[in-house]
């Protein structure tokens, strides 16, 4: 008879963040590490003053180097979907807290000795990596919920499809409203901006001023035209018209009114389509910006981490090269 072995895996609610992972287990460990390092640093009183070359300096340096290698390994671990060596969430939690502990450990390792050399360069790179990582922690705790709220169960792909569809629809309607409207709407469709370069993705695309003016002009133009048509429709019959030509006039009015009604309908439809389209574009660009901000720090964090690895190798080799 088999009894179920008690599971060692921590059953975390799937939505709880990596910062709270396992009841702040890694935060506690990081604080303990820092406290031990600080205590050892205060207790230790080397003859030549605190520096990386004392036994404590070497100890903290080794600890720091091992931490850096392990922290970098997160980049590998998170791609190993079959790995059973802890969950990626646990790794991320440890990555954040132990990465922050590195600030204390590395600073104590160097004994506050800084200079224009490869050693301080490695330190500076490490601090830059940690600072960018800290930004990452902030955006990872804030932006995903903002994205969820923005998407509201929908998808960006669907929105883009809809924008193209609305553009086509707008041109179809505009074609029926005469060449001038057609021209304006075709131009407006050409001018839509979704995403773009780094800046455009982060802060929203910049619409050229002429295009922005043109867009504002279109709504005004269409609204004015709609108002004019509506005014014609509400004017009704002329009470002073003579009986003789009333019949002819009435017939003309009826035809004209039918035409106007259709035009008003189309204009209203076109305005609705454009407004829906512009709202969608704004939402898409907001979504792109949120995603870009969620990712952009990695453009610094990852390359600087590799730079740090190289500087770390140079630091360690040069120290033992000169011994």
């Amino acid at each position, binding site marked *: 008879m088999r009894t179920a072995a008690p599971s060692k895996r921590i059953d975390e609610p799937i939505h709880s963040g990596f910062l709270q992972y396992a009841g702040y287990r890694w935060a506690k460990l990081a604080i303990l590490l820092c406290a031990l390092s600080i205590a050892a640093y205060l207790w230790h009183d080397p003859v030549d003053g605190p520096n990386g070359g004392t036994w404590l300096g070497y100890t903290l340096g080794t600890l720091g180097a091992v931490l850096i290698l392990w922290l970098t390994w997160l980049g590998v671990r998170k791609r190993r979907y079959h790995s059973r060596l802890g969950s990626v969430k646990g790794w991320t939690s440890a990555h954040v807290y132990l990465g922050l502990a590195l600030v204390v450990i590395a600073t104590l390792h160097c004994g506050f000795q800084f200079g224009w050399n490869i050693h301080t360069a490695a330190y500076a790179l490490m601090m830059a990596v940690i600072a960018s990582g800290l930004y990452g922690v902030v955006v990872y705790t804030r932006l995903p919920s903002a994205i969820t709220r923005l998407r509201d169960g929908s998808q960006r792909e669907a929105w883009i499809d809809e924008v193209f569809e609305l553009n086509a629809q707008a041109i179809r309607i505009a074609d029926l409203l005469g060449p001038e409207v057609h021209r304006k709407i075709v131009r407006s469709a050409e001018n839509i901006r979704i995403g773009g*370069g780094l800046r455009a993705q982060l802060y929203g695309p910049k619409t050229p001023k002429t295009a922005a003016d043109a867009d504002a002009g279109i709504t005004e133009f269409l609204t004015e035209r709609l108002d004019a048509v509506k005014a014609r429709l509400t004017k009704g019959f002329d009470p002073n018209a003579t009986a003789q030509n009333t019949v002819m006039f009435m017939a003309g009015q009826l035809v004209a009114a039918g035409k106007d009604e259709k035009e008003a309908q189309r204009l209203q439809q076109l305005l609705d389509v454009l407004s829906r389209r512009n709202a969608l574009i704004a939402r898409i660009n907001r979504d792109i910006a949120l995603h870009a901000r969620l990712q952009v720090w990695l453009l610094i964090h990852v390359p600087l981490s*590799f730079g740090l690895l190289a500087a770390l190798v140079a630091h360690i080799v040069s120290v033992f090269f000169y011994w």
Partner: protein
Amino acid sequence: MRVRLKTSPRSGAPATERVLDAPVIRIGRGTDQTLVLADLRVALAHAELSPSTSRPSGVRLEAKTRLGVYVNGSPQLSAELSPGDVLDFGRFRLTVGKPTPGEDLSLTLTERYAEHDETAVRKVQLRTRLSQVAWSRRSMAWVLFGLILIGGLIVPAVTHLHAIERTQTVSRDRIPPDKPAADLIWNSGPLSAAHHALTTDCAACHRKPFEAVRDDTCRGCHTALKEHASDHARLAAPPFAGWRCTDCHREHNGPALIPAANRICTDCHRDPQQTAHGTLEAVPDWSRHHPPFRLQLSRRNPTGTGFHWIEARQGTPEALHEDTGLKYPHDVHLDPQGIDAPGGKRVLVCADCHTPTADGTSFQPIAMATHCAACHRLDFDPAAPDRELPHGKPAEVVQVVRDYYARVALAGGAPWPDAPAVVRQVRRPGETLPPAQARAALAWADARAAIALRDVFERRTCFYCHTVTGDGSAEHPWTIAAVAPNRPAYTRTVFPHDQHRTVPCTSCHAVETSQHAQDVVLPDIQRCRDCHGDTGALKETPSTCQSCHDYHAVDWERVDSRTLPPAAQSTARGMP
């Protein structure tokens, strides 16, 4: 005009050809156009092609809508066409080719994408992810990795190895390069003030990769540096065995090169029984456990001739006096009211007699001629105040005095009223005294000289400063007691007087109350501790062992008086 139109569903696909022949080729969505393009974004009448007015056989494009025509990607209201131009109308594209003879223009019409593909194609063209706009993180990472590895490791390493090959082992003749090489970025911190000139010359000390700086490299310049003990057998044994220069002298840690903490000395000296040898005293620290100073003091030999030296700890009765062979009351000489001198009272200060040596650490020996003679005149006869006795030669003094009075007696004309007539008589030049008169004159001279000599030796001149024995008789001629040669009281340190010149001498040396030359007027350790504390002291000046003791400079056992050969005596104190 004639335009050959090649229609191809996709670019590169087989085309069908036809010729459009009209005065003006009109392009648009309207059915009345010469070339009908069925795309809603195209205006009913979108553009016209007509022969150019400015260019023979050229073709001019004129947009008929303010939408313009996209010529090579940018919207134009009119354009002169030339082969290679690309005109976009919605999803349709017209490519201008070279006209065949007899025709004005050749156009290829393609559809950029099929109508139903358009959304998909345009979506693909959108850049909505960061990975589509920035350099890939991976490539940036590897580029940075490579750059830093090359700049931070490979280039400095190659430069350094090259410098090792190029230069010889360090010596005093070595001139560091003017400009730093790439290995400068490996410099972990500023070099000490003494070695700062080597900042650009890593290879001066770091001679072999992955090996610590070796002692013989240091010895390349520091050739004359002594070891901590003269006994080589002792140096080869613990605690000295295995120690290297760099164990104490930690470079790249700022301006100071001597250990900042006394622990490096007291680790051995706190318990010398364990580590070195039993004759050393335990010195666990300076402020509380450093033993009282050991003074080297002169003692007159029991035989009465010459001196020997003892070492006595301050605090013991032996350390309170030394035999100098002189009479010298400091208090009298330093009387603030002044001391009697030729020409009246004169106030003396320490510096009147104690002249610093060139290095400022110590003082030049006191010399009779320089420091005493101005007051302590060696004249012996008031009638001849300019006549002075030779100093330091008692036998000669006797001769000089006797000769002087004999000459005066024989020459005649002496001023003393109590002298016999023969002595007082003024003689003619060339006159010779008869033997009886001469004997009488010499007898007076001898008696007069005896009085003067007794005065000189027993009451005045010599007697002021020296101990004189003998009564002037043939059996007991006068003997001046020997004066002890000057030897430093501290044998383990040279006290840097120059570094203490801001404090008055009397704050350490109790000379104002010293009545005898035998007084030892040296401060005790407590006086030093008033200002000097251990390294790391909060209030006192943190002082390293090296402030007083030099690990290298002095070979202690040679200075030690007990083993010092009698001949090797340092500069004599007192009269030369």
